């Protein structure tokens, strides 16, 4: 615990939070890029099968025309422009154009339903909307009746819109024509408007899709985004020659940071894929050097590759499998900072030529220098797979309220279970009572738009409450363990993070589902589900006969098998100062699988803690009472809807508690 207090704050203020007034907004930076980088590619888009490039000079010229067109329609400083569509250059230009006029772009998720769109357009008081195509035009036209402030809808792709006669509709081409005319009548006007902007102007409002209640509009200033982008660019050594693929929604702050913010700050090129379905293919054509994907995308890329490997000729398949195993061993050794042995090192050199290189090329990841995963915890297998191929995947932690970035793992200092150290200029501390992660830094948002109540709950004296519970490890890395509201305390005061423990338990292939209990209790206990397929085949190999799930789960041998897994989790917990006291003392194997039909888990396989605590109260009491077994009856709903009763005598087992501070 003492160590934890010593490292209660990590990170430090950074001197570079100041901005040059000549380059303190995105429009000013793009003017500078057009002068400095000129003909260098700023953004590409694949249309009609061909990559079309636009230089920084084009980027500025296009944005200027859109800005002038908006001005001709009567755009005033402070007006909002809703931006809806897939990642397309004109939409990025429309954002910059809005900023150039002292307005605020409000990107919306392109797959939002009308009701969500209506809320945001109305709440943000958008006067203008720049959208991609007919689909979005249709939605906005429906929404317009409820959003009287929305005056103009400007579209990029005219297909299907020829017969639309609404006076509020305008194509981007027409808008630019009006812009040209406006420029002739008011020469130099736009340059003055750009010069009027300052770093503390609002640069964007990003609405976050709240899981509860209405979306909140996170207000970020030019200073927030530019300083954060600049620090991250310096941290990763990004430059004008880097390439990024923009394929995640424009409404998401991450895309805004990577494809717009950092691109403008460092001058690198953003590439817009042809369509959502062609992303993997386009990825290979571009060969980005800088890449971002949430774990589910990393996973789906891996699946597509492994399917193709499975289809390959048997000797080839065996070769790929063999070298992937080698790579995994070497990477594990590297993460654990031990040597992988001469044999494996030689094999891995061979593997680079035969397997890893070609595979990376096929994935479109041959040129990647920096890649991130974020959003949720990435499976260790997945993370190891990519790293073992030599792709520099790192974990990142951030949120909209931090201008996308808080922590990034440093090159060469990557750990499986942490999100790294704070970005330069960011400070992090852990709230002593709740275990919640707080941060402050240059990227801290200004507040939620028109929602002082929510702002007050999140932002306190410059510190932002993330809502995540975390710990800082001995080397100053942040580890996120759970949502703060799910975290509790044992009666002794030790932090109890159920999901963190459950995820650790579920790393064992034999454990399918786990429910940990401990809030307000003297110690932690676990209700576990065995994985019928894995444990069943294990039992068969050992000649253990069983009749049913219930029967198998209550075999003493199976209890021994699972006890080993629990002991391993305990040993790993012992190495973490804050969690060593929250080891699992007792566990039992449930006589039935937790099932959504019985309301024990949700359809998306999330454990319903409250319901389980009630339904299995007798088992939980048994775990805390010191009994050796508990008799239970449980109702089960069969697939055909009949309800039956399962009776069982459930054993209770003790696990070994490892000494705190012990090595893992």
């Amino acid at each position: 615990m003492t160590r934890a207090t010593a490292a209660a704050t990590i990170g430090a203020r950074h001197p570079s939070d100041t901005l040059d007034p000549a380059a303190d907004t995105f429009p000013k930076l793009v003017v500078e890029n057009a002068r400095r980088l000129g003909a260098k590619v700023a953004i590409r888009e694949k249309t009609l099968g061909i990559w079309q490039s636009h230089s920084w000079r084009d980027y500025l010229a296009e944005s200027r025309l859109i800005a002038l067109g908006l001005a001709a329609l009567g755009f005033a400083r402070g007006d909002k422009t809703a931006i809806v569509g897939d990642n397309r250059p004109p939409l990025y230009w429309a954002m910059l154009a809005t900023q150039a006029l002292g307005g605020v772009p409000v990107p919306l998720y392109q797959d939002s339903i009308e009701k969500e769109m209506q809320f945001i357009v109305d709440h943000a008081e958008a006067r203008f909307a720049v959208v991609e195509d007919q689909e979005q035009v249709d939605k906005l036209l429906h929404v317009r009746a409820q959003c009287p402030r929305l005056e103009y809808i400007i579209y990029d792709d005219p297909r299907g819109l020829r017969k639309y006669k609404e006076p509020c509709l305008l194509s981007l081409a027409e808008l630019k024509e009006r812009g040209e005319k406006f420029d002739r009548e008011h020469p130099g006007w736009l340059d003055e408007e750009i010069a009027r902007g300052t770093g503390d102007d609002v640069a964007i409002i990003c609405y976050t899709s709240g899981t509860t209640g209405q979306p909140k509009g996170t207000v970020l200033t030019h200073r927030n985004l530019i300083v954060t982008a600049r620090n991250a660019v310096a941290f990763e050594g990004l430059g004008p020659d880097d390439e990024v693929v923009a394929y995640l929604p424009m409404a998401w702050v991450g895309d805004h940071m990577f494809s717009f913010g950092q691109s403008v700050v460092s001058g690198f090129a953003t590439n817009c894929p042809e369509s959502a379905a062609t992303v993997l293919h386009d990825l290979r054509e571009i060969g980005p050097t800088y890449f971002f994907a949430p774990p589910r995308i990393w996973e789906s890329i891996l699946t597509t590759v492994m399917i193709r490997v499975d289809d390959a000729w048997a000797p080839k398949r065996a070769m790929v499998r063999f070298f992937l195993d080698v790579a995994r061993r070497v990477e594990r050794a590297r993460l654990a900072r031990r040597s992988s042995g001469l044999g494996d090192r030689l094999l891995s050199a061979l593997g680079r030529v035969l397997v890893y290189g070609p595979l990376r090329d096929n994935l479109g990841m041959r040129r990647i220098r920096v890649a991130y995963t974020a959003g949720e915890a990435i499976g260790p297998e997945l993370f190891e797979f990519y790293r073992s191929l030599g792709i520099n995947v790192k974990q990142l932690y951030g949120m909209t309220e931090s201008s996308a970035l808080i922590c990034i793992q440093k090159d060469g200092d990557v750990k499986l279970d942490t999100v790294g150290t704070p970005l330069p200029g960011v400070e992090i501390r852990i709230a002593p009572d709740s275990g919640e992660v707080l941060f402050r830094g240059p990227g801290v948002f200004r507040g939620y738009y028109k929602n002082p109540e929510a702002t007050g709950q999140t932002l306190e004296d410059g510190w932002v409450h993330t809502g995540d519970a975390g710990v800082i490890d001995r080397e100053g890395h942040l580890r996120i363990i759970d949502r703060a509201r799910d975290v509790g305390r044992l009666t002794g005061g030790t932090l109890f993070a159920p999901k963190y423990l459950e995820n650790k338990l579920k790393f064992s292939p034999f454990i399918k589902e786990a429910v940990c209990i401990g809030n307000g209790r003297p110690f932690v206990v676990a209700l576990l589900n065995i994985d019928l397929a894995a444990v069943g085949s294990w039992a068969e190999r050992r000649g253990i006969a069983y009749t049913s799930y219930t029967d198998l789960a209550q075999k003493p041998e199976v209890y021994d098998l699972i006890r080993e897994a629990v002991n391993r989790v305990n040993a790993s917990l012992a190495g973490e100062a804050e969690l060593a006291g929250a080891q699992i003392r007792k566990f039992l194997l449930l006589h039935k699988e937790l099932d959504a039909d019985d309301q024990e888990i949700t359809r998306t396989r999330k454990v319903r803690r409250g319901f389980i605590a009630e339904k299995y109260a007798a088992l939980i009491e048994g775990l805390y009472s010191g009994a050796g077994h508990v008799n239970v009856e449980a109702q089960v709903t069969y697939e055909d809807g009949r309800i039956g009763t399962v009776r069982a005598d459930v054993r209770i087992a003790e696990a070994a508690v490892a000494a705190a501070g012990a090595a893992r």
Partner: protein
Amino acid sequence: MSGRTPLLEVDGISVRFGAVQALERVSLSIGRGEVAAIIGPNGAGKTTLLNVISGFYHPYEGHIRFEGKDRTHLKPYDVAALGIARTFQNVALFKGMSVLDNIMTGRLLKMKGSFLLEALYWGPAQRQELEHRAFVERIIDFLEIQAIRKTPAGQLPYGLQKRVELARALAAEPTLLLLDEPMAGMNVEEKEDMCRFVLGVNDEFGTTIALIEHDMSVVMDISDHVVTLDYGRKIADGTPDEVRANPAVIDAYLGLAHA
């Protein structure tokens, strides 16, 4: 029909296969720019009618006029050159060729130039190839099949193969597009997509469309004009509402379907 200038006029054609009278003095007129549907029970002669229009069969009596000129006895090749393209009831793609190449074959009639220049890919040949490719890319974009551009056609699911077939027909820049059961065997979502594309083609390229379709909700939704055949004879011809209300049609077709 509907006051538009007729693009295609079929006047009293009859076709016989041995003892089977496939078509008996069928007349109809399809106006420029309209979507016309041909419906009828199995064996009513719908596909035969399409085959006559596209020159696969020749009627022993009657006339076909396309753009005001008599075209009764042309070969399929000449019919295609006139600007009539079609898709087939059973998908007829080159299975081993990529989607792109399949669609490029639709441009064949528009390509000219010598074998030598083509082989060298030089001068006008190169310019021509690029123009054709650009046109094909517009269709690919229009039908939203960018992701399968390089996929062999045989590997695609059925609904997509149908879409590729439509793309190939469009590549010929037809004035009249004949679609033989474009939605057969599709699920609801694929049907909706196909409807959207058929209407889109009509709207965007101004192509006149004649289609055979069994799904009545599709027919009634997208056609301007419905022709009903039964046992090789035309029993109704009019707007969807008129045809729906026609007792002969209800007996022959709709009645059966709802029985």
